[in-house]
């Protein structure tokens, strides 16, 4: 229904001032090759310095970030973004490594060889679903249970990926989908932080994903080989890293009054779903509920 061209036209005519700009950018977005060249040739340094929020224009910057769909923030896909993503993720990647060791130990206990566990970490790149999968691992292999659980646990990534669209709309499909291959919770969070502060680093997700991937695969091998030598990750507080990263992010994503309603809806939905439904459906449902309420609110 919402995709109906008529509805779309109506929504556009409401925001009449932006209509022509939006239309022209849509034309750009369609031409993947052309859209690629344009932002890439823009000067990344200028873009990042002018876009960096300062104390004075913080409010404006937040507004721009919030309405990134309406602004023309030059999102580039270049080495600067790649490097920034990689470097900023190293501390978090070390924590991911702690979890990789735990996964390796579990995989070893489940009877997977080092090569098999490493292959899983290198190609699946989704920690929670891998840990649950090796916990389900048995002989004979419960193939359907493993695959359905993997899907259920990872479905939240659809929503996380969709949330990147306002910044990724001008990047080519190869760049977008290639970056998403290495997307995990941690580097998605750091990428959102970077894009929200208008760095315009389109390659941040790929760079941070590479850092996470290296740590994850490397630690899986260490964990599988070392077996039970390393103990429980909770001893070192590694299990708290994801919560800590996301908590830190709330401080940055808060956009004042306008965040209150969607956040409350998401929190309530997630808490109730987590009580009633096993697995990680609560993330998906919390996000969807908040987005739905926002769509309804905008319609009033």
């Amino acid at each position, binding site marked *: 229904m919402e995709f109906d061209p008529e509805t779309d036209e109506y929504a556009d005519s409401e925001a009449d001032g932006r209509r022509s700009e939006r239309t022209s950018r849509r034309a750009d977005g369609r031409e993947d090759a052309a859209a690629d060249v344009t932002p890439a040739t823009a000067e990344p340094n200028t873009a990042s310095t002018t876009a960096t929020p300062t104390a004075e224009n913080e409010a404006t910057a937040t507004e721009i970030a919030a309405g990134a769909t309406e602004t023309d923030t030059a999102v580039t896909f270049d080495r600067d973004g790649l490097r920034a993503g990689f470097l900023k993720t190293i501390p978090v990647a070390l924590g991911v490594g702690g979890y990789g060791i735990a996964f390796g130990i579990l995989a070893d206990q489940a009877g997977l060889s080092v090569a098999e566990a490493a292959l899983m970490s290198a190609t699946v790149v989704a920690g929670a679903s891998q840990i649950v999968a090796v916990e389900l691992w048995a002989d004979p292999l419960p193939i359907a249970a493993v695959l359905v659980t993997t899907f259920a646990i990872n479905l939240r990534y659809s929503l996380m990926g969709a949330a990147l669209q306002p910044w990724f709309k001008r990047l080519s499909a190869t760049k977008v989908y290639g970056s998403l291959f290495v997307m995990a919770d941690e580097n998605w969070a750091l990428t959102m932080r970077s894009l*929200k502060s208008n760095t315009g680093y389109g390659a941040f997700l790929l760079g941070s994903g590479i850092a996470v991937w290296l740590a994850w695969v490397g630690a899986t091998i260490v964990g599988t080989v070392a077996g039970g030598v390393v103990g429980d990750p909770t001893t070192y507080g590694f299990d708290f890293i994801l919560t800590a990263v996301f908590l830190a992010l709330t401080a940055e994503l808060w956009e004042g009054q306008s965040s209150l309603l969607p956040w409350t809806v998401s929190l309530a939905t997630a808490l109730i779903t987590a009580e009633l439904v096993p697995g990680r459906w609560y993330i998906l449902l919390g996000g969807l509920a908040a987005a739905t309420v926002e769509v309804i609110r905008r319609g009033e």
Partner: protein
Amino acid sequence: MASDALILSLDPLVVAVVLAMALITFLTKVGGIWLVRRFELSDRLEAGLTVLPGAIVIAVIGPELAAGGPAEWAAGGAVLLVMWRTESILLALCTGVLAVVAFRMAF
């Protein structure tokens, strides 16, 4: 069982299941953005998308913290405090991990 397995052995069935997991996961990762890239979004839907990051973050940590105890709550408070004062995610992260270990021993 595990010790019998050769380090580099690759069972064809295991490889097939792992690759199927990889494909499914990749489809979940790209599925959402594929959908929104394919269709023109109305302003209302785009507004819905822009609240997603915050909403997802809240949906992740809400139940996570609710399942924790005083140690996690106190460490969570420390993370927010450090983040608010310094805006350094690294500092907040280190504080959080050290705090959770310390509080777990204390409580």
